[in-house]
């Protein structure tokens, strides 16, 4: 249970750190910024785990995980899942979520409703749906997955590898049957 207590406490610290960093020192690469904070918190978590007693001074003996090394491993696993499955996903959804942005656009309307025609130009608080796709293309260019050649977008060798991987996965899952 020490693992759960420490990982939960460190997740709260991480969330606060990310909030402070994003609000007061926003970087262009927020994922990298968040990951740096996660790694810093991971080091602190290991240090706190190593310097505190197994029962943290209040846990009863029947909730202590043994062996001790396994408790540390659990702590790292819970904290890592909280970052990659929690904080990072929250950021991805809030910053990149297409569906979520549609819901927020509806939420920001006095009527609480939106239509496709209205979203074409008004998606993303008035940015328009072209802007949404510009962001995706920009991400693909930055990740060196596609290259722009005049008016065409061309897959890079890296992009071909990633595309092939997803094509195999989609084929295996029979996603493109219709």
């Amino acid at each position: 249970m020490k693992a759960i207590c420490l990982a939960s406490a460190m997740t709260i610290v991480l969330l606060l750190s990310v909030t402070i960093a994003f609000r007061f020192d926003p970087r262009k690469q927020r994922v990298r910024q968040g990951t740096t904070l996660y790694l810093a918190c991971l080091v602190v978590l290991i240090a706190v785990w190593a310097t505190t007693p197994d029962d943290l001074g209040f846990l009863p003996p029947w909730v202590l995980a043994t062996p001790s090394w396994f408790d540390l491993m659990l702590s790292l696993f819970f904290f890592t899942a909280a970052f990659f499955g929690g904080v990072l996903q929250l950021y991805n959804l809030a910053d990149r979520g297409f569906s979520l942005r549609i819901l927020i656009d509806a939420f920001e309307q006095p009527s609480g409703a939106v239509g496709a025609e209205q979203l074409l130009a008004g998606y993303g608080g008035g940015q328009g749906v072209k802007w949404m796709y510009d962001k995706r293309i920009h991400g693909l260019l930055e990740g060196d997955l596609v290259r722009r050649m005049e008016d065409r977008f061309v897959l890079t060798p890296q992009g071909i590898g990633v595309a092939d991987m997803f094509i195999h996965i989609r084929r295996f899952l029979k996603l493109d049957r219709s």
Partner: protein
Amino acid sequence: MAWSPAIAAFVTAVAWFGVFILAHIFGWRAGHGNAPWLLTTYLASLVATLASVVGLAAWTSSGFLLPIVLALMTSACLFVLYVPAVYTVLTSLSVQTLVMLRRRGGALSATELYERFASRAILDERLATLAASGYLIADGERFRLTLRGRGLARAFAFVKASWKLGPGG
């Protein structure tokens, strides 16, 4: 050497999560709807995990609380790592762009890409998905937020404001 209750609970949760992934993938291949099938198979694996952990604890006469909490936490952590991967394959427009480019010989004009992915059709598609998931309800030509959709929109609007993310999306 016997495993400690903590290790046994962790391994049990991981094993049942493996069974869940197999069931989810094979159901998916068989044409089951993704979200309901995902939840059904996950809940079934969670029940199986709990039953196994309680059975193991009773058999070894160890306490119940620690193995149950550890197994639930382990399963929940694996789930939050698995679901984003699923939705990347299913809905990511970046992934769909790469796949479309590859299938069309590795190159496409900007016009073709924007006509496919920044079009009225993609909005119609996504609005229909949101309505089918219960976040929006059709109201003539428009779509109105349901109570569930409003709650989700409010929560994420709060996150966006707290993290100063700008318009996003």
